[in-house]
Every structure is written in structure tokens, then in C-alpha cells.
């Protein structure tokens, strides 16, 4: 790096008055970054810039969202007309709506990848644990934000997807209370739209901004991002440091600019979908959940709703939350996939997952029918507890076999299972999004 040795930066020239706002901006950026950062944390493959990308997308969402809010009217029917107005009559309205739509969808993917990055570089031990929890909360809020935003256009797709998702609550303990709370008792209505609108445009963004601030503050407190060689309580090895300005800033700007250019070009080529106006008397066939929930929708096809939308997601979330608390904190950090051995085990478990999960789906679809096998049993047990126990037993056996076979440490074994489950969820999501046709039958 050409600037490593340049310690005496020329003071910002204050001669030009016009440069002042710009300087203020620069010094703000400087203040939320450390002055110097470790050289090895600069490598793109260390973080893939995913956290920064999420921030850029969130920023674009807020700007385009505020613009649309000026024209949007949160009342059933009228909402649809106002979105049509945004699309057809407002200058650049279509573009703004597209940017909002694509940024939201990419944000889910980018934030998810960011989480995977942190997991696979063991970036969540010690002081970073709190930030792991905050990160998960941010991710859940992003999902909620997408879901509440999904209803706003009030078209057929939105109306029925939200109807299905809200009705899932009936199967969750005390979920009926929640359902009645957001729907006026019977169906998705004005009340639902107004609540979703408030959540989407005010409550969730405010909470997110606060959480972002805490998130960044905690990164500073933890001494920056993890990088190879970061060891807990191991401060005697000093890494080579470089100045943030311009080494880091330049990279951030490039990543941000490329991302914005990317979203803009997609928004110019493709349009955000808008279906017919919602009709509460006519369900489209198939009526599907939005893609980021179609993994859950797929689970729902195979398990009793109590398991599909409550027990399984809650267990998965608990596992995600507590991983850094139940595994070995003192282990190696900042290295992708921990070790070569774990890399190999992870690869095998991903492959295994890609083979097994479709196998299970096909078995359940065409061969085994738990309800017919046990006609006298209540649904919760025959299509819930029994298949669920089989899957759990399967996962545990796999865990111990992998652990023995590769002689894995606890962290490596956890990572192996995590890879298995994540791959399984991605397979479910793909199945639910692209391979389910009318009547939720498998198609290809």
C-alpha cells in the first residue's frame, strides 16, 4: 500500500468555503472508523464487504421508502391505486419503486450471507457475542420489514400471502390472540394494513437505526472485525497496522458504488411485480408465501403446522442464538471454516444435505403418508411429532458419525451440522419457490 508510511496527512484545507460540508462529512466518516486498522483485515475475502453492503442497501431503502411514502395511501383498495400512481404517473416513480423492491430482496440475501460469514470465520466469540445476538435481531427485523412491506401494494399476491402467513398463527400457542389483534378477528383488513404500514415505515426503521448504531459501536469495542490470527486475550502479537484513510475508505466507497450501480441497473431492466387488486373472495392458485418464507411454507407441506411454523423455527433460532455460548470460545478465530479437516466435513455434509432433503421431500410426497398410516392418531402426533422425531434422530446420528469419522472438535462438529441445516433450509426454500405449482403440487 502506497500510503502506509504517510503519517502526516496534510490538514484539511479550510480555505475553500464550499469544501466545508464535505469536510464535515469526511470527519464524520473518520470518527465512526478507527484511525488505523490491521492490514490483514483489509483483504476482501476477510469479510466480503457484506456488512457494508447491507448498510448501503438499508440506506437506499430508507431514501426510496420516504419518497414513496409521500404518495402512498394506507387504505385497502386506495393503496393499490396509489401504488399504480407511483408506477405510472410519477416521474421516476417506477424506478424508485423498483429500487426499493430490489434493495429489499437483496438485503435479505446480503444480510444472510453476512451472518454466514461471521459464523464461518468464528467472528462471534468473547466480546463479539453481544453483536452476534444484535445481528440476529437485525436480520429478523429485516425479514419482518420485508413482510410488512409486502402487504402494502394490496394486490392479490400480497393479500393472500399475508392471509396465509397470518393464519399460521392459529396453530401456535396463544397465536390466535395475535391473529385477532392484527386482523379484526376475521380477515386481513384495514386494521392489518394500517398496522403493517406503521410498523413498516416508522417502528421497524427506527429500531433498526438504533440497532445499527449499537452494532457499529460494538464492532469498535471489539477491536474491529476478526481476521486470521485474532486470538482472545492474546494481545502480545501486534498485527501490522495501516491507516483507514484511504485504505479502508477507498475500498468501502468502491464496494458501495458498485452495489448501487448494480441495483440501479437491475431496476432499469426489471420491474417490481404488481398483481391485480386484492380480492378477498378469490384466492389465486397457487397462493404462495414470499420467497424468504417459502422454506417455512415447504415445511408446512410436510409437518403439522405446530411443528412447521413454531417448534422447528424456534429450535433453529435458539441454536443460532446460543452457538457462541455453548461452543469453545478459546478456539482459533478469523480463519474460514476453522480447519482443512472441518472444511472437508462441511463439504460432505452440504452434499449429503443436497441429496437427503430432496429424498425426504419425495418420500413424503409420494410414498409415506403418516396420516393414513396412523388414522386413529391426532394430527399433531402422526404428522408432527413422529416425522419430527425421525428427522431429529437422523440429524443426531449424522452429528456423531461425522464427529467420530473426522475426529472433530466441538466447534468443528457444530459447524458441520450448521452447514447441513443451512443447506437443508436453502433446498427447502428453492423447492418452495420454484418447484411448487397449483395446489402446492411438485412441478418441474
Amino acid at each position, binding site marked *: 500500500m502506497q500510503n502506509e508510511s504517510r503519517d502526516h496527512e496534510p490538514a484539511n484545507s479550510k480555505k475553500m468555503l464550499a469544501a466545508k460540508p464535505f469536510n464535515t462529512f469526511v470527519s464524520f466518516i473518520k470518527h465512526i472508523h478507527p484511525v488505523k486498522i490491521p492490514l490483514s483485515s483489509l483483504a476482501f475475502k476477510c469479510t466480503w464487504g457484506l456488512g457494508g453492503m447491507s448498510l448501503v442497501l438499508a440506506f437506499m431503502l430508507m431514501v426510496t421508502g420516504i419518497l414513496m411514502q409521500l404518495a402512498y395511501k394506507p387504505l385497502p383498495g386506495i393503496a393499490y391505486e396509489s401504488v399504480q400512481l407511483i408506477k405510472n404517473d410519477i416521474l421516476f416513480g417506477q424506478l424508485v419503486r423498483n429500487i426499493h423492491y430490489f434493495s429489499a430482496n437483496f438485503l435479505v440475501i446480503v444480510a444472510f450471507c453476512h451472518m454466514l460469514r461471521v459464523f464461518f470465520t468464528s467472528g462471534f466469540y468473547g466480546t463479539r457475542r453481544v453483536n452476534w445476538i444484535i445481528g440476529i435481531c437485525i436480520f429478523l427485523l429485516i425479514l419482518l420489514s420485508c413482510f410488512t412491506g409486502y402487504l402494502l401494494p394490496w394486490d392479490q399476491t400480497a393479500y393472500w400471502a399475508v392471509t396465509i402467513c397470518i393464519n399460521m398463527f392459529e396453530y401456535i400457542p396463544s397465536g390466535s390472540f395475535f391473529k385477532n389483534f392484527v386482523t379484526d378477528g376475521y380477515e386481513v383488513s384495514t386494521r392489518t394494513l394500517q398496522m403493517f404500514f406503521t410498523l413498516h415505515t416508522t417502528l421497524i426503521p427506527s429500531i433498526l437505526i438504533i440497532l445499527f448504531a449499537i452494532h457499529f459501536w460494538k464492532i469498535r469495542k471489539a477491536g474491529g472485525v476478526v481476521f486470521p490470527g485474532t486470538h482472545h486475550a492474546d494481545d502480545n502479537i501486534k498485527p501490522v497496522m495501516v491507516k483507514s484513510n484511504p485504505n479502508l475508505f477507498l475500498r468501502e466507497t468502491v464496494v458501495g458504488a458498485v452495489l448501487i450501480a448494480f441495483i440501479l441497473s437491475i431496476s432499469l431492466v426489471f420491474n417490481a411485480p404488481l398483481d391485480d387488486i386484492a380480492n378477498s*373472495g378469490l384466492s389465486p392458485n397457487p*397462493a404462495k408465501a414470499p420467497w424468504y418464507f417459502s422454506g417455512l411454507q415447504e415445511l408446512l407441506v410436510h409437518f403439522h403446522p405446530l411443528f412447521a411454523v413454531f417448534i422447528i423455527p424456534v429450535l433453529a433460532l435458539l441454536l443460532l442464538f446460543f452457538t457462541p455460548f455453548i461452543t469453545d470460545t478459546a478456539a482459533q478465530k478469523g480463519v474460514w471454516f476453522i480447519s482443512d479437516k472441518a472444511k472437508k466435513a462441511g463439504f460432505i455434509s452440504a452434499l449429503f444435505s443436497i441429496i437427503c432433503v430432496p429424498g425426504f421431500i419425495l418420500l413424503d410426497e409420494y410414498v409415506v403418508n403418516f396420516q393414513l398410516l396412523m388414522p386413529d392418531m391426532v394430527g399433531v402426533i402422526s404428522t408432527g411429532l413422529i416425522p419430527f422425531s425421525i428427522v431429529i434422530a437422523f440429524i443426531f446420528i449424522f452429528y456423531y458419525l461425522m464427529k467420530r469419522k473426522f475426529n472433530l472438535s466441538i466447534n468443528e462438529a457444530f459447524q458441520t451440522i450448521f452447514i447441513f441445516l443451512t443447506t437443508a433450509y436453502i433446498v427447502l426454500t428453492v423447492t418452495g419457490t420454484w418447484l411448487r405449482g397449483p*395446489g402446492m403440487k411438485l412441478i418441474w
Partner: protein
Amino acid sequence: MKILWTGLGFIAIAEFIALCVSFLNPKKGKTVSGNSDNIIEAGTIDSFQPESVTAFVRGKFYLVCLKDGGFLALSSKCTHLGCSVPWNEEEKKFICPCHASQFDMTGKVLSSPAPRALDIYKIKIVNMNIIVDISRIIKRAGFAKEQVIYPENVKR
């Protein structure tokens, strides 16, 4: 001093919560029952053939006239996840477009995932007129003879 502030803080939170609740339940005080929107006059008895299903779009229900002349008002909302279920005249079944649950003419589940029969509404027959009260939905596990309403002059 600290205790005082904490106490005041709690009072403020309680007030705020009370405020939220009152904003979220604006209906309080108004009477809902007896609302004419919730009572639907479906028509006279003889305008329905036995073994027929008539859709009422406004009330989102089907008026079913069974083979023996009894009447049932079935909600058109699927008991699985709430899609709107159309009547299939060829197959004489209700088939849900969302996850393919099937129900027979009485609303009984013919094929899962729906966990229970279609919900029903209360029917009254006044001077040959069929009146459906859609203010309250009645959930049921399956079909039972008592749910059917018969005009007085038709024998069971």
C-alpha cells in the same frame, strides 16, 4: 431521589401502554351487534333446489340446500390457512386452491391438510325467508345433523 425517578418512569411507561391500547382498540363503546350489515337475507326457501350450493359473495358464505331440504350456511374460508374455497360443480366438492384441501357439500373434510370442517353461520327461517347471521362464526370439528336447519313443513 433515584426511587422517585424510577417510580415516575414506571408511571410514564404505564400511561404510554394504556395510550397504546386505547389507540389500538378504537371500537370500544360502539355497539357491533344488531348491525344490519351482519344479517343477510338469502331469499325464500323455494328459491333453492335440494342438493344445490349458492355462493353469497358479500357475506363470504355458501348457502347449501341438502338433499333432504335442510339448510347450512358454510363459511367460504378454508380452515387450513384461510384461502377462499370455491365450489366445484362437476366434482360436487369444495376444493381449496392453496393446498388442495377438499370438503364435501356439508363442509366435512374429504382430504387434508385442513384440520376441521368448514365453519358455519347461524341460520333462521322467518316466514319462508332464510336469514343468515354472519356476525359470529361457528367452529366445528365435523358435520353433525343438529347443524342443519329445516323449514318447519319439511319432514326429517
